[in-house]
């Protein structure tokens, strides 16, 4: 029995090593399934909760062009959440259970969405930095070993690039504006830079799951590798906006061929993860309220569907 089990795991690993995708009905180790459910559901929840900080600015967008773009972006995020929830369901967990895990606080979502959006420049900063960091995380996930997740990520990544560009354009406009607009821009970067850096997760040394996830090809790069890539890209892009990244230690390191950067405030990171960020309560309450306020709609839709089906069955009988 034991031998049989080992050979199943070996076969599974060999499939992954050969870059063949795992599909829902294939045998997989329990831990692989659990890791994916956790990761994909966290990802889906992040898309859904991620609509909240931006949603606040749809009615406050400075003009119609900005408004339609932001509306489309937030709608995309709803769509991304839905692609991911359905990918997650292929692993044998149902949608309502996933929602319950979010609403009860059992499941996590990206901590970045627990920060407030206090000015219009924040919408630009989210597009540039938050979506930028998300894209860096997500592009390698298109090659994830689990088929449904990889396919969902291909769709997400295709749509995500407009998000980052619309954000950068907002910032670029501010950077060419009045002194007050320039200050608003710099202030947004000052507030969003470090939380964006934290989006890549704990340092490799403190990320116990990384090694197994790399072996299973769920992850293709470590947190620190992706974070470094992010710094290298953003430093150059910041020059176009004429802004300063709020890190006095950022410096080109000739030997490494990368930018060095300062230490992340991990106390802040863990504190927000644990639920003590500026908006954790507000975000979860908004999600719970939406779910509870929508209950009658969900029930009415089921009742209507049942009534229609019954009527149809009746008609068939008569005919």
């Amino acid at each position: 029995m034991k031998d049989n089990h080992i050979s199943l795991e070996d076969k599974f690993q060999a499939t992954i090593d050969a870059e063949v995708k795992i599909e829902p009905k294939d045998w997989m180790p329990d831990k692989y399934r659990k890791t994916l459910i956790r990761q994909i559901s966290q990802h889906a929840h992040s898309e859904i909760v991620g609509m909240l900080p931006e949603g606040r600015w749809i009615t406050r967008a400075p003009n119609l062009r900005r408004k339609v773009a932001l509306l489309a972006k937030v709608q995309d995020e709803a769509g991304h959440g839905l692609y991911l929830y359905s990918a997650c369901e292929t692993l044998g967990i149902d949608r309502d259970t996933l929602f319950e895990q979010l609403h009860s606080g059992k499941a996590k979502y990206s901590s970045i969405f627990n920060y407030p959006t206090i000015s219009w420049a924040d919408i630009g900063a989210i597009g540039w930095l938050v979506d930028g960091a998300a894209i860096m995380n997500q592009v390698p996930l298109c090659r994830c070993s689990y088929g449904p997740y990889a396919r969902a990520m291909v769709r997400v990544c295709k749509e995500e690039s407009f998000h980052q560009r619309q954000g950068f354009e907002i910032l670029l406009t501010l950077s060419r504006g009045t002194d007050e607009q320039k200050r608003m821009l710099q202030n947004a970067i000052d507030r969003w830079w470090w939380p964006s850096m934290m989006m890549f997760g704990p340092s490799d040394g403190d990320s116990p799951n990384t090694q197994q996830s790399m072996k299973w090809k769920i992850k293709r790069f470590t947190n620190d590798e992706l974070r470094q890539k992010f710094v290298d890209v953003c430093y150059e892009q910041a020059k176009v906006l004429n802004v300063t990244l709020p890190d006095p230690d950022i410096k080109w390191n000739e030997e490494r061929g990368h930018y060095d950067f300062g230490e992340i405030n991990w106390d802040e990171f863990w504190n927000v993860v644990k639920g003590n960020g500026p908006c954790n309560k507000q975000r979860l309450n908004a999600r719970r309220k939406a779910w509870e306020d929508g209950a009658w709609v969900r029930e009415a839709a089921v009742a209507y569907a049942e009534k229609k089906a019954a009527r149809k069955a009746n008609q068939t009988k008569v005919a």
Partner: protein
Amino acid sequence: MNTCAHEHLNTFTQQKNMKSNWPLWEVFIRSKQGLSHKHVGSLHAADEEMAIQNARDVYTRRNEGISIWVVESKHITASNPDESESLYDPANDKVYRHPTFYDLPDSLKHI
């Protein structure tokens, strides 16, 4: 697995969810005339009409399709991956089903 996850919840939410858990639908999209419908993912909807509307919103926001099929997931029967050997291996040794199996001179045209 579900029973286990449900244990964390109070009965109130659980009851409400039981009632409202919409069925799952698989979505197939024809991207343009002349191509077949292709599976793109799934979604929840109370009935087939809502499933089509939701599929429109979720899977065709950027002109990905001109025709949508939805089918309730429970109606799909799938082959079992454990049986793939007996199902697909017999085709492996039948190379004579491919045109390249037949030896013909290069000078022969239009064949």
